[in-house]
């Protein structure tokens, strides 16, 4: 049995891969972002803003395979080459170097002497904002090309020992445990070089004080206004941390060096698809553009409402539908069968939203909370269940084992319930797993009519405000739930019917 269940579960993996590809294709339908004003050649700010918009959706990465993954070293090399050539991209590259900051220094400063003097001056000059962030150097030292080159040469001689990972890691570890002005200044002096360790610490620390310190340093070195103020409440803390981790997820390649094996994994991981899937798996679904909350938190809050309602509706439809089907099969061809057939077909044909709207209008006085929505949701599946149950019951009643049971003199009720129904229930149970996705779709409508704040209600609001991150996350969630239901229903089928199990496992052995 276990082998059968495992086998079925493993077969769901390629399906989930397919599901993720479909949703990924959905995200590629989205238009490429454009900045509000058209770009001119020298518009560095506009270009950076566009760059940022595109990177937030990984549009700078190739779709499925990255032949040459970027890291901070290749970025710095590129930028230096542009500056030496003094081409159209030079100004943009200088700005980028300044933004990368400390993480770029180990790859830039040691080579500074090999660069022709004019370019050397420009590069050193471009790094002025970095020195200002660190709080070192005099203004004249930073802005005059020759003196700036000299300044950065000296800086590297003095400070290169600080730009090592063990040193930074120690400082970050210490600052998570206690408040210290001195340590904070040390970390500010290595600038963005500390980001990797800061982010690693953000993931592991729970202490609000430490989080506040870590985010303070991170905001300082990146120039992003996302520091956590001390004494913030739990939800604010989670939102800020998740915001930082999402940002790091997008920008990591700017600040870290890929070494050895990391390069190989990066050729797969640094792609649009992998970034997106890994983000989804680890709950990094981004922030809702509608209200700025992390999508993951919102899903956790909304999904139980919808899933619970659908579950209840499934239960109701089984409780109502199965007896109807059994009764109709038992009285096959009699008025009760005809009546049931007519009612079932009619109920099947009335759309969920119509039922919901009618119930909402005429039953509002009753004010019965979850009862009316569940009734509205379950109507269609009641009829599907009844039809399936009737068909399988008729088939079961015609089987030989029913005949032999009767021949041996078993009571009518016993024959019906023990012999026929037990077997006739199997297809209906399997059907329940397939019905669930349909109910999930119906729940969207019911939530809207009854104003229930589940994922359906939230999705409709998201469509109004074009909150794409939420829509993608919901679509993915629904698909995963559906796949899980399919697997569960197949396993249940194997559980209830040994013949299915045998054929499935025997073929594997042969």
């Amino acid at each position, binding site marked *: 049995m276990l082998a059968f269940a495992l086998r079925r579960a493993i077969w769901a993996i390629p399906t989930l891969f397919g599901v993720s590809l479909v949703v990924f294709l959905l995200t590629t339908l989205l238009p490429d972002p454009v900045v509000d004003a058209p770009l001119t050649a020298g518009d560095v700010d506009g270009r950076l803003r566009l760059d940022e918009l595109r990177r937030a959706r990984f549009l700078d990465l190739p779709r499925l395979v990255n032949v040459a993954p970027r890291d901070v070293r290749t970025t710095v090399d590129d930028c230096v080459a542009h500056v030496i050539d003094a081409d159209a991209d030079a100004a943009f590259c200088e700005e980028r170097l300044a933004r990368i900051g400390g993480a770029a220094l180990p790859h830039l400063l040691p080579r500074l002497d090999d660069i022709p003097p004019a370019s050397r001056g420009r590069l050193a000059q471009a790094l002025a904002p970095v020195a200002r962030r660190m709080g070192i150097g005099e203004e004249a030292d930073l802005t005059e090309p020759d003196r700036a080159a000299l300044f950065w040469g000296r800086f590297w001689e003095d400070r290169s020992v600080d730009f090592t990972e063990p040193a930074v890691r120690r400082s970050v570890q210490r600052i998570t445990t206690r408040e210290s002005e001195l340590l904070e200044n040390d970390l500010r002096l290595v600038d963005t070089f500390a980001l990797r360790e800061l982010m690693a610490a953000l993931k592991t620390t729970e202490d609000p004080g430490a989080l506040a310190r870590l985010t303070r340093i991170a905001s300082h070195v990146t120039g992003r206004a996302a520091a956590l103020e001390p004494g913030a409440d739990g939800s604010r803390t989670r939102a800020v941390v998740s915001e930082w981790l999402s940002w790091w997820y997008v920008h990591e390649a700017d600040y870290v060096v890929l070494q050895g094996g990391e390069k190989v994994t990066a050729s797969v991981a640094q792609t649009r698809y992998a970034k997106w899937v890994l983000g989804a798996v680890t709950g990094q679904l981004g922030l809702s553009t509608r209200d700025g909350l992390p999508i993951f938190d919102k899903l956790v809050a909304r999904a139980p409402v919808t899933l619970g309602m659908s579950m209840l509706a499934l239960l109701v439809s089984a409780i109502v539908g199965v007896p109807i089907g059994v009764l109709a099969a038992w009285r096959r*061809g009699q008025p009760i069968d005809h009546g049931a057939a007519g009612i079932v*077909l009619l109920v099947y044909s009335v759309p969920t939203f119509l039922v919901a709207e009618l119930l909402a209008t005429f039953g509002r006085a009753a004010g019965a909370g979850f009862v009316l929505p569940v009734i509205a949701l379950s109507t269609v599946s009641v009829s599907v269940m009844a039809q399936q149950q009737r068909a399988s019951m008729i088939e079961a009643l015609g089987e030989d084992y029913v005949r032999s049971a009767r021949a041996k003199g078993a009571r009518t009720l016993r024959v019906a319930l023990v012999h026929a129904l037990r077997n006739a229930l199997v297809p209906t149970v399997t059907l329940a797993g397939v019905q669930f996705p349909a109910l*999930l779709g119906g729940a*969207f409508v019911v939530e809207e009519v009854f104003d229930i704040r589940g994922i359906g209600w939230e999705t409709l609001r998201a*469509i109004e405000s*074009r909150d*794409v991150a939420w*829509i993608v996350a919901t679509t993915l969630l629904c698909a995963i739930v559906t796949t899980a239901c399919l697997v569960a229903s197949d396993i249940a089928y194997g559980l209830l019917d040994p013949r299915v199990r045998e054929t499935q496992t025997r073929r594997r052995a042969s």
Partner: protein
Amino acid sequence: MKDRRSSDPGSGEPKPPISSQEGRESVPLLLARASRVPPPASDPGAPRRAKAAPRTAAPPLAGVDWADPGTVTLRLGKAGLLVAALLLLVSIFAEVIASDLPIACKIHGHVYVLPNITRPAELEEMDRRALAAEADWAVRPIVARGPRLAPGEERAPLLAPGDGRGHWLGTDRDGRDVFARIVHGTRSYLVFALAAVFASLALGVLLGAVAGLFGGAADALFGRVVESVSAFPPLVLVLGVQAAVPTPTLFTLFFAIALTRWPEVARLVRGEVILATTRDYVLAARALGASPMRVLWRHIMPNVRAPLVVAASMGVSAVVLTEASLDFLRIGAPGGAASWGETMSQFRDASSAWWLLAFPGALLVVTVVAYNLMGEALRSALDPRSR
């Protein structure tokens, strides 16, 4: 197979047969049932739904053999066909039934033929009351109102109930005639649903036949693709596509709905093709040297046609329901096109205007019932196995 429960000790006394039909079954029939050979397992390896749960693959909708397999279902099916044909006629002649311009008229010395369809600019701009007064003669449509407000049309009261004279079924929130909206709404529904169903049929037949014929890797891949696409609840996938595209249009809606429908068709076709390829007449045709295309087209496809027709009929009702739901949620086709769901969605803001919900809703239910009945009748008529 032997059921272990059949060895239950009986109570000893003879019982009457469960039902008269069971008791009357003849010996040859019993033998025929016992010798019925199960379809050969031709599974490509993956535990496909269709194989693991053959009975749930296509649950009988209204029960083909509710009582009297032949006559009742067929008669109801004919009624369904009649209703469907009527709706199609209404959608084709929507302008003749309800339009703000006459069918033909003579005005200022010009004779206009079918201005309600050609919509000449000079009439379009005219005040409708002036037009009625100045025309020498005019053949008027049954209801002299279009789905949109025409220039100069007397301002109808907003949200007024039907009065039996001007507005038979009342007016909606913008003072537009509900009857005209419903009549023109049939067009967007039926044309759209038929197109989406045909697109999904074409795609499903193509992919299903390929998977069924070639088997092996193609079939395994097909299985994964079908399972992936059908993992999305249809409404959710349509919502996702409509929200993701930069400008949702009728075409993207059509595309999204066809996308959700094809796996069902493809699964059906694949199953039938696999079943047919093991039959003796296909083997014989191959032995006679028929090309694979000829075998597919002449010997296998005729088997697939019947279930396809049924699936198409059921598909139309499903698509109509989906589209109505989308319109009701106000995320359907953009633009002010008349549609039943759009009229019904107005009821959400004006819950005293029952006619906004009742008339389109009733028509929607009638349409869906008609197509479902038609599908049932076709199923029982075309599929000899179900009798």
